[in-house]
């Protein structure tokens, strides 16, 4: 039995289906990921809850997911994204890749000072041997 609250909640959930946005089941190009990103960002700015559907996705790359979802972590807080986004119809392999992309995006944006420092240190160590 559905409660009125649940029905109301469901009405406010927008489904964004990857293959419909890009018109293909090959979710591989960064520029296609950007289209998905823009759709998610618009919905987030309208304070909607979003279900990102991976239905019918065949090939999937990190380049696509970085554009579509990873860059959101530089624009919205982790808490907001956790609260507003959900995933459906994803295969286990898709989820594995998405999880790794999200982990990297969080690290990339969260602690940029440490990240840049680590990069500088690594490069500095190699100064002696570099051309």
């Amino acid at each position, binding site marked *: 039995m559905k409660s009125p609250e649940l029905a109301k909640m469901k009405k406010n959930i927008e489904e964004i289906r990857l293959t419909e946005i890009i018109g*293909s089941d*090959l979710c*591989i*190009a*960064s*520029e*296609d990921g950007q289209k998905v990103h823009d759709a998610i960002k618009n919905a987030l700015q309208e304070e909607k809850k979003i279900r990102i559907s991976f239905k019918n996705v*065949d*090939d*999937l*790359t*990190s*380049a*696509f997911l*970085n*554009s579509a979802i*990873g*860059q959101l*972590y*530089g624009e919205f807080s*982790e808490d907001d*994204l*956790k609260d507003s*986004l*959900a*995933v*459906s119809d*994803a295969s*286990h*392999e898709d*989820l*594995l*890749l*998405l*999880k*790794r*992309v*999200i982990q*990297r*995006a969080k*690290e*990339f*944006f969260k602690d*940029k000072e440490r*990240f*840049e420092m*680590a*990069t*500088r240190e*690594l*490069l*500095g160590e*190699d*100064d002696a*041997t*570099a*051309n």
Partner: protein
Amino acid sequence: MSSCREAICEIDMSDVNWIDANMCAPLGAVLQSNSYENKITKIILLNMKSRIQDILQKNGFLPNFGFDVVKKPDPYGTTIEYQRFGCMDSQSFKRYVERHFRGKGLPEMTPRLAQKFRESISEIFENAIDHSKTQLGIFACGQYFPAQKRLDFSIADLGIGFRENILNCLGKGFAPEDAIEWALEGMNTTRKPKGGKPGGFGLKLIKEFIKLNRGGLYIVSDCGFWSLSQGQVYKNRFKAPFPGTIVNIEINTSDAQSYCLESEEIIDAEDIF
């Protein structure tokens, strides 16, 4: 190249006894670069052995590059067509993947392996778009070697390469072969968090996949050479630079179950963000 004078470039092919057809991608890149820099309007391949010409006609290299010959039929279906792409042309590459790697499929590969292969070359292509910063195009070509159960695919660009990209973005110099190695390690990326997208992940994923597949990954950039083959990393430096980057992947097509490892982790889709 034996001689380049005025607008004609003559290439002596008499010592060429074999060419792995996928190497047409870097060959096309070199010829394109040479033509652009020296304003060459015509390239002549001299003394080419007929079996070499056969290879270059079957995979479309000669006709697609503009030589006055027709594409030859490929009765064994082992060639993967040479093609040059615009430097931002993801959509053409998608159509290329669709045309060559779906539907008719590739022989003797599990569907999951074929998918991993397609995803890998797509990651390489996107990486080239992202980093090469070139207007001269991206070049792709492949070859299936049924007897060795091997599928090779090469993508070449005429961009700035790993060493210069790291130098420009982070301000420090690596030896060219070390620059490639750096780009394949851990969280390393030349992207800047401020106003940027996260990235620098595609080649690392391919490295993991190639290790599991017991295949090969070979990268040339500037004077640097880096390879992973049979689990072993090898680095070297060439005397002269390649005018961009070549990434070649070699898939062990007999691999039927390398991917059980990636399926062991349990992912909670409700708690992924």
